[in-house]
């Protein structure tokens, strides 16, 4: 029956491969080539300039400023999100420990899990626009609350000192629920008798979490780390919709810088592609570093 397999392989593989080569592979390859030209938009002229774009990048204060903000996102968002995710997942899966009952979740686990996951199904655009209103200095939910209890009402997104951190908080808000569910799923895969044994040995809740749960979840935490690190290098939609990088570039990120360079007031396609290439290598090295740093011995339970 082997003679019949090639028609199927060809019909099944050629259409997806074609689509993928045309719309994904070829743009990625072209991006590297365009990044070495001085292409200025819609004209056909594009002279090769070697690595001049990358050299210019080194002296571009705006780009460095944007990268600095991405570095902050990278340093804060994964730690906060994973920390909160692990905390809530632990509460939901084993917060309700009751004597000989072993390890169980608190009451209402399913409802909490459903609610926490809400932001994950919403479009980032909706989240950005909604939070922009929450932070609104006059009619916003946040300042409405602050005024109601007699506290001063800052301008949040209008203040260069706070704008970036407000967006960062939304990023954490939008992601925590997903990781609660992800870690929860991984936790429920841990055999219950391990916990029963630990309980019999009289381990405290904190020790159980630190010595048993987290080591057994390490693979999942590592995956979470990589995803969040990649997300931290992006942040484009939230920033563009909430602050557009402002006020005065205080909340700029590299994705927005690239978008503005290519499709904003100027259309420096060569230079924008160079930013894209830098972003690619940053993403790659962050992923590799996260894999390396988080590497530990795999624990298998049989």
């Amino acid at each position, binding site marked *: *029956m082997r003679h*019949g397999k090639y*028609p199927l*392989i060809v019909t*099944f*593989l050629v*259409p*997806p491969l074609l*689509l993928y080569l045309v*719309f*994904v*592979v070829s*743009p990625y390859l*072209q991006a590297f080539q365009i990044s070495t030209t001085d292409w200025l938009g819609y004209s056909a002229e594009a002279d090769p300039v070697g690595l001049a774009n990358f050299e210019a990048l080194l002296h571009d204060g705006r780009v460095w400023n944007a990268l600095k903000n991405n570095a902050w996102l990278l340093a804060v968002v994964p730690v906060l999100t994973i920390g909160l995710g692990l*905390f809530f997942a632990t509460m*939901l*899966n084993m917060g*309700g*420990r*009751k*004597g000989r*009952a*072993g390890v169980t*979740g*608190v009451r*209402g686990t*399913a*409802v*909490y*899990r459903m*609610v*926490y*996951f*809400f932001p994950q*199904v919403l*479009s980032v655009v*909706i989240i950005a*626009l909604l*939070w922009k*209103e929450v932070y609104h200095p006059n*009619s916003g*939910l946040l*300042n*409405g*609350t602050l005024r109601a209890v007699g506290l001063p009402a800052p301008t949040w997104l209008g203040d260069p000192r706070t704008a970036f951190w407000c967006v960062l908080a939304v990023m954490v*808000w939008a992601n*925590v629920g*997903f990781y609660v*569910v992800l870690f929860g*799923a991984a936790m429920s895969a841990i055999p219950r008798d391990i916990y029963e044994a630990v309980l019999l040995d009289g381990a405290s809740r904190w020790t159980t979490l630190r010595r048993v749960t987290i080591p057994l979840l390490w693979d999942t935490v590592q995956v979470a780390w990589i995803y969040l690190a990649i997300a931290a290098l992006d942040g*484009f*939609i939230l920033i563009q*919709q909430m602050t557009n990088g402002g006020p005065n570039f205080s909340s700029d990120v590299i994705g927005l810088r690239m978008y503005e360079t290519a499709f904003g007031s100027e259309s420096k*396609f060569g230079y924008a*592609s160079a*930013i*894209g290439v830098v*972003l*690619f290598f940053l*993403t790659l090295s962050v992923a590799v570093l996260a894999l390396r740093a988080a590497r530990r011995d795999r624990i298998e339970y049989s």
Partner: protein
Amino acid sequence: MTILDKPASEGAAADERRVPRDRALRGESGAANVFSHGFLLLWGLLTVLPLLWMFISSFKSDVEILADPWGLPGALRFENWARAWTEAHIGRYFLNSAIVVAGSLTLTMLLGAAAAYVFARYEFRGRQIAYYLFVGGMMFPVFLALVPLFFVVRNAGLFGTWTGLILVYAAYSLPFTVFFLTAFFRTLPTTVAEAALIDGCGHFRLFFRVMLPMARPGMISIAIFNFLSQWNQFILPQVLMQGDDSKWVLAQGLTALAVSQGYQGDYSGLFAGLTIATLPVLVVYVIFQRQVQSGLTAGQLK
């Protein structure tokens, strides 16, 4: 609050059912339970309040919104919804999004399943290379491709068309879809396929009649994942669907609504638009929450 009163219905309930509820023992860990419930409730409120506020504000008048962010609407002003639906064309954009995603999701599933099946079940020259070519696409940030993609789509005469968006959405969904489904097809037993082939079943029939039905759980998971990411897509339409605003997708319509709201001060219209965009997704999610949660997290756990 319903959050507290509803018993855990699924998941954790499976563990709880085996364990008889012991009232006396429950009291001992009461303090810890109050503590954990406090944090869980706080995060639940943080998640729900902005959404609830958006929903309530969509019925208020602009004066009410500006005067008191916490106040309830004086009347259910459905005219806000009507205004968002017709004047801001949220209805039309909703339909546009539905058309585009219906097309792109079908195409993604068809091509993704076909390619993944071939990678998982057939041995041929160049299989490894082709597979890693597909899967490697997951590593690249979409920003890198943005500039060349703009020209690829324009040169193909697909700029500003739904066909263009459908093809591009599908192309960029393929890496993860192929990765996920290849792993899934590999877990299916080979004996059934061998038996069918010996019985004289052709390779095409084998796929459509035997393998595809067997792969249903995996197909559903990845379909949910792709539906949400394509429905919430923002950067691709913003670059590839500029100009003609009658063809915009929902995310674009919402940002346009937010911009015009900024000029006109039509807060209630913005909240109504956001609510209209949020409600259907949220309702579908609440009904199919288990499938959605496992669909979105399954890929990460592999």
